[in-house]
């Protein structure tokens, strides 16, 4: 058996030695990535497919360049596509070594061109799991348990090449599957609201973000808005990630754009298709569109605000208008 990221015992020891105090964790995204994302890390990716993915954090990682990453997630789209695009363009600056995943594509927007490119050219090591498996692995990590039992997908070929074990249940005598916990070195999470200490209030589906944050050694949180701490603690059971599971808090409006952020904005379908087309052209042998995309939107800007600055305001209004979920479900004051 091998562990990627931290083993359960290392993860426990890591927290024992960690400063868990309630302190102001605001910093720039540049600082947060410099401090908490290292070459060779196992990176836990928050969100689900193209919902509330940590796009701003990934852009910053790509700008700084990180190599030999292991990416752990249930279902992802844009966040991993952006990392893959950077690797496709220059492997000496950015690279993914290994994937622990259930699904990488964009649902209605199509399959992932760069997952096909990387896998079919043998450029990455893959460990397939199901969505429940990856979610339960993070959950085991968040519970301080080395494994968690699970019934699915018993009988699937996934079990032949991943680290799951099938045992006879000691109580029923029937086969049951055991999944090893996942403890990434760093979790990347985008939420709607956070306070300066790192308390997070996720609206809409929580996906697996609370579990990933609690299982990981470090957690970087970006939020659409920082709010007053008093407003956060007025609804304590709406706090979905507690402050001591967070290490850096960065206010980044539209931080999961062009994906969907519940209650804030819907997908920018035009921009997703535009980026995906550039990836597909790369897969088919023409790198120009992808090179141009990265030069214009990622390497040509110094931070995420300058990326958003290039998106037509009318398009941003449109995705806000088109978002069907309640905009606010608990009153708060935006932190001045």
């Amino acid at each position, binding site marked *: 058996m091998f562990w990627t990221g931290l083993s359960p015992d290392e993860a426990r020891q890591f927290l024992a030695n960690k400063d868990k105090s309630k302190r102001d964790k605001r910093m720039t995204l540049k600082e947060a990535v410099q401090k908490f994302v290292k070459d060779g890390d196992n990176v836990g990716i928050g969100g*689900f*497919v*193209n*919902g509330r993915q940590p796009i701003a954090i990934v852009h910053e990682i790509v700008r700084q360049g990180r190599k030999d990453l292991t990416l752990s997630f249930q*279902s992802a789209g844009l966040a991993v596509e952006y990392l893959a695009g950077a690797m496709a363009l220059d492997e000496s600056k950015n690279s993914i070594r290994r994937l622990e*995943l*259930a*699904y*990488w594509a964009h*649902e*209605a*927007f199509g*399959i*992932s061109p760069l*997952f*096909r490119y990387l*896998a*079919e050219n*043998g450029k990455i*090591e*893959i460990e*397939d*799991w*199901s*969505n*429940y*498996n990856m*979610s*339960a692995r993070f*959950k085991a990590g968040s519970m301080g348990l080395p494994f968690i039992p*699970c*019934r*699915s*997908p*018993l*009988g*699937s*070929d*996934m079990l*032949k090449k991943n680290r799951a074990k*099938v045992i006879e*249940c000691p109580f029923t005598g*029937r*086969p049951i*599957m055991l999944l090893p916990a996942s403890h990434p070195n760093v979790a990347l999470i985008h939420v709607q609201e956070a306070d300066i200490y790192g308390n997070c209030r996720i609206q*809409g*589906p*929580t*996906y*697996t*973000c*609370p579990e990933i944050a609690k299982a990981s050694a470090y957690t970087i949180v970006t939020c659409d808005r920082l709010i007053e701490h008093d407003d956060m603690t007025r609804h304590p059971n709406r706090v979905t990630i507690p402050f001591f599971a967070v290490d850096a808090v960065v206010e980044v409006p539209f931080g999961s754009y062009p994906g*969907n952020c*519940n209650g804030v904005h*819907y*997908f920018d*379908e035009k921009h997703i298709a535009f980026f995906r087309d550039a990836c597909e052209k790369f897969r088919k042998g023409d790198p120009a569109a992808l090179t141009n995309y990265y030069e214009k939107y990622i390497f040509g800007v110094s931070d995420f605000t300058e990326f958003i600055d290039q998106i037509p305001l009318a398009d941003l209004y449109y995705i806000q208008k088109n*978002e*069907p*979920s309640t905009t606010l479900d608990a009153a708060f004051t935006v932190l001045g």
Partner: protein
Amino acid sequence: MTKYASDFTPQEMIVVAGSRTLEDNKVVFAGTGLPMVAITLAQLTHGPGIVPVFEAGSVGPTLSRGLPLSVGDSRTTYRSNYLQGLNSAFELTQRGFCDIGFIGGAEIDPYGNLNSTMMGDFPDGYQKPKVRLPGSGGASDMACSCERTIIIMVHEPRRFREKLSYITSPGYLDGSPNARWKAGLAGQGPYRVITTKAILGFDDETKRMKLIATLPGETVQSVQDATGFELIIPDDVYEFEPPTVEEIRLIREVIDPKGYFMKKKIKE
């Protein structure tokens, strides 16, 4: 008298067949794409009491704010009865709250096992597949732990194979007696396979795929010709009722007017 539509696409036929297969008042765990369209159509016709469950965490939403583009997007959460995350949705399923799992796959075998992971040589070529597909997502969890599953497939010989290169989502496994139970699974397995050409089920004894009905324009022979393995053909195969004018109108004008899932070309 019911008016039948004279002009409809293979996707529309699949969606209509899928919708009619769903009973009212059942809890239906919805996969991405055509299953979402079929559930919405069923809700608007005979099944207003259908309770959709989405894997990103939403239980029992109202799908009246546009067709979701993802099983985790905001449109799956509108007026949700319960909304948590992936662990919650799959734990509820493992516990037995979901009657039907509604999924699709790239390839299927005679026992209803599905592949959505890779084409090529497994296990030796796993790290460098001929074609890499998106992966299981939640489909294998649904196939294992929903009480029954309904599978949607494009019907062509290369997708209906005697042997798959990779089993992502278990059906009846090798078809041996009680194979699912012996593997440790909770749900009963595939109930129907709905394709662009036919409605199929599984033989009670052998668990191999059998023809139940042919869709409009198809014959027993044309369905068998499009299947890469031998189907069981019972005596009581019937012709499926064509889509009605109203069903097609609902799909085109109400459910998917922009054609996200309905306008994609099916390669024949």
